[in-house]
C-alpha cells in the first residue's frame, strides 16, 4: 500500500475553492458567492472554535477535564459543513465535532461537562438540532439514517448530516447506514472527516482506495473536498444537503484533512507518526488561508482581526470560569433519567443507597 493509492498526496479529484495561500479558485460543480461579511463570520467561527479547543486542552492538562478530543486542524471541515446546515436540518456528531456544535449554537460548556465527567452529554438534541455525542464508533450513522427516514415520513423539507471519521468507515454499522440510506433514498449527508488517522492507525489500515469512492459501491455519489478549505466544505455540504432535501437521496462527503494533535489528551502520537507529516499539514492550516484571503482582498483590517482575537480571549476565559463552576452531580443523579417512567428497581436501589449514605451523616 503506497501513500498515493490511498490519496495521501492531494489528488486531482479534491474539491478546493481556496488554496492554502489564500487564493480563490473556481470549481465547475461547486460555485459559491460569499460576501465579505460572510467570510469574516466564517473566519470568526474558525478562530473561536479553535480557541474553545485550546482552552479545553489546557483545562484537561490542569486536571479539570478527564479527557479531551481535540479538533485542531479540522476547524474548516466542521465550520464549513456546520454553516451549511439550516435550522431544520439535524446533525449527528461523533465526539470531536466541537466546531459543529458551535455552529449549531450549543453552548460549549455542555461539551466540557461531558469530558469533565459530570454527565454523558445531557443537552437537548432538539433544541439546536444537534444530537448527543456518540462514542461507540459508527453507531450514530444509523441513527442519522433513521432520523432521515422520519423526515421523509413527516413530508418535511429537511436533511440530516452525520459525522464520522476515516476509521469509522470500517465499522459494519456505517456500511449498513450506507445501505439503508441508499435503499430508502434517505435525505442524509455522510460527512466523513478523513483526518488520516484512527488513533495510531493510518488510513491504509481501513481502505486501499480513497474513501469517497466507497459511496459508489452503494449507488450514491461521493465527493472528496479539501477539508482545510472552509469555502469548499461549505459549498460541497450545501449542495449535498440541498440534494437531500430535494429528494435526491444521500451523498458521501470525504473531507480530506489532518488531525494536528493527539487523538485525545491520553494519546502519544510520537509513538506512531513522524513530525514531517505534521509540518507539511501545518502549511495547509484552515485559518491562515482565510486570513490571507481576507488580507489579500482587503476585506478586513487589523481591527477586525484584533476584535476576533479579543472575543476569543473572552470566550476562553468564560469557558474556563464556567467549567470550574460546574457542580458535581448529586449521588441521587445516578438513578435519574435511566427510565422515563417509574421503575421499581430504580426506586429500590435509590432508596437503599441514599439511606446507606445517610448512615454516614448520623
Amino acid at each position, binding site marked *: 500500500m503506497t501513500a498515493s493509492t490511498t490519496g495521501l498526496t492531494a489528488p486531482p479529484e479534491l474539491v478546493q475553492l481556496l488554496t492554502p495561500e489564500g487564493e480563490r479558485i473556481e470549481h465547475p460543480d461547486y460555485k459559491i458567492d460569499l460576501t465579505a461579511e460572510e467570510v469574516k463570520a466564517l473566519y470568526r467561527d474558525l478562530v473561536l472554535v479553535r480557541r474553545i479547543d485550546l482552552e479545553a486542552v489546557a483545562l484537561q492538562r490542569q486536571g479539570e477535564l478527564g479527557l479531551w478530543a481535540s479538533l485542531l486542524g479540522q476547524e474548516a471541515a466542521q465550520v464549513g459543513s456546520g454553516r451549511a446546515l439550516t435550522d431544520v436540518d439535524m446533525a449527528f456528531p461523533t465526539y470531536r465535532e466541537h466546531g459543529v456544535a458551535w455552529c449549531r449554537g450549543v453552548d460549549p460548556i455542555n461539551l466540557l461537562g461531558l469530558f469533565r465527567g459530570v*454527565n454523558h452529554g445531557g443537552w437537548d438534541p432538539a433544541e439546536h438540532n444537534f444530537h448527543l455525542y456518540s462514542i461507540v464508533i459508527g453507531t450514530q450513522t444509523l441513527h442519522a439514517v433513521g432520523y432521515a427516514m422520519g423526515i421523509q415520513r413527516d413530508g418535511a423539507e429537511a436533511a440530516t448530516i452525520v459525522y464520522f471519521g476515516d476509521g469509522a468507515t470500517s465499522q459494519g454499522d456505517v456500511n449498513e447506514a450506507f445501505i*439503508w440510506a441508499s435503499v430508502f433514498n434517505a435525505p442524509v449527508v455522510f460527512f466523513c472527516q478523513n483526518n488520516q488517522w484512527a488513533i495510531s492507525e493510518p488510513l491504509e489500515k481501513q481502505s486501499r482506495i480513497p474513501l469517497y469512492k466507497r459511496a459508489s459501491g452503494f449507488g450514491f455519489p461521493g465527493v472528496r473536498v479539501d477539508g482545510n478549505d472552509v469555502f469548499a466544505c461549505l459549498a460541497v455540504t450545501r449542495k449535498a444537503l440541498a440534494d437531500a432535501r430535494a429528494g435526491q437521496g444521500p451523498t458521501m462527503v470525504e473531507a480530506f484533512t489532518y488531525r494536528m494533535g493527539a487523538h485525545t489528551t491520553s494519546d502519544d502520537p510520537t509513538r506512531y507518526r513522524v513530525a514531517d507529516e505534521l509540518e507539511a499539514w501545518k502549511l495547509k492550516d484552515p485559518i491562515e488561508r482565510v486570513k490571507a484571503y481576507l488580507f489579500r482582498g482587503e476585506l478586513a483590517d487589523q481591527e477586525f482581526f484584533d476584535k476576533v482575537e479579543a472575543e476569543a480571549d473572552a470566550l476562553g476565559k468564560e469557558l474556563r470560569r464556567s467549567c470550574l463552576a460546574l457542580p458535581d452531580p448529586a449521588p441521587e443523579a445516578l438513578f435519574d433519567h435511566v427510565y422515563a417512567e417509574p421503575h421499581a428497581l430504580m426506586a429500590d436501589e435509590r432508596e437503599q443507597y441514599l439511606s446507606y449514605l445517610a448512615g454516614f451523616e448520623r
Partner: protein
Amino acid sequence: MTVLTLAKALNEGLRAAMDADPKVLIMGEDVGKLGGVFRVTDGLQKDFGEDRVIDTPLAESGIIGTAIGLAIRGYRPVCEIQFDGFVFPAADQIITQLAKMPLRSLGKLKLPVVVRIPCGGGIGAVEHHSESPEAYFTHTAGLRVVACSNPVDAYTMIQDAVRSDDPIVFFEPKRRYWDKADVELGAPGLPLGKAKVVRTGNDVTLLAYGPMVKTCLESAAAAEDDGRSVEVIDLRSLSPLDMGVITESVNRTGRCVVVHEAPVFTGLGGELAARISEACFFRLESPVLRVGGFSTPYPPSRLEDHYLPDLDRVLDAVDRVLAY
C-alpha cells in the same frame, strides 16, 4: 370475546396500537407482504402502507439503529427480530445506544422502541431458532424486558409496550403462538410491570414466564394429583421484577422453583434465587431451585426434549424442594 391465537392476539394488539397513534411504525425483515415468518404482522402493511410497515434490509443492527433515529424524530418503532438467535448483530445498538441514550440525554430524549423477539425452543428448528436470550437484556440497565405467555396478555402487553416511553424488549413464546384463548378486544389488561398468580397453591411457588408458564401450570396440575398444592406465578415483567407478588407467595409457601428455558448459568433464575433467598431468608425451608436449559448451546432438535424443562423435570424439582 373473540377466540384468538397468541400470534393473532399480537397482531390485533399491534393493529390497535397503530390505529391509536400514527407515529407507531413496524419494521423488520419480511414483516410486510409476508406478514413475518410467524404472521404476527399479517395484513398490517396492506392496511397501513409501506411507510408504516417497513420491510427492511437484512441487517439487525440497522433495524435497531434506524429505529433509534426514528424515535429521536418522534416515531414509535416496533422492531421485529426474526428469531431469538439473530438478535446478536443488534446487541451493540441495543446495549450501548437504545438502553443508554435516554440517560445520556438526561431525559431529554425518550426512546419508545419495542424490540419484539420470538423466543424459545420446542419447535424442532435448526440452530439459532430456539434460544432464550432474555438474560442479556435483563442485565442491561436502561431496558425493560417483558415476556407474554398467553393470548390475553399478548394482546394488552404489546399495546402497553408500544405506549411506554421506555425501550422494551418484548419476548414472545414462539411455540405458544398457536395457543388459543378468549380475548376481549379493546379491554385493558394487567399493567405491564405486574406479575400474576396464575394458579394458587400453598406448598411450593413456581416462577415462570413465556413458554414455561404453560409447562408449570401442567406440572402444578399433575402435582395436585399427588396431593401437592403448587402456586404458579407468571412473571410477565422480567426487568424490573415484581418482587412484591413473588415474595408474598414464597413467604407463604416457603419453597420456590424457578423455571426457564435459558441456560441456568447466570440466567434470570440466579437473580430470582438471590433476591428471594435474601427477601425470604427466614421463611425458606429449602433453597430456591432452578430448572432450565443446560450450560450448552441450544442442542440439535432431536435433543431438545432433553434440554428443555418439561413436566417431569419441574416435578422433580418440586419433589426436591419438598424433600428439604
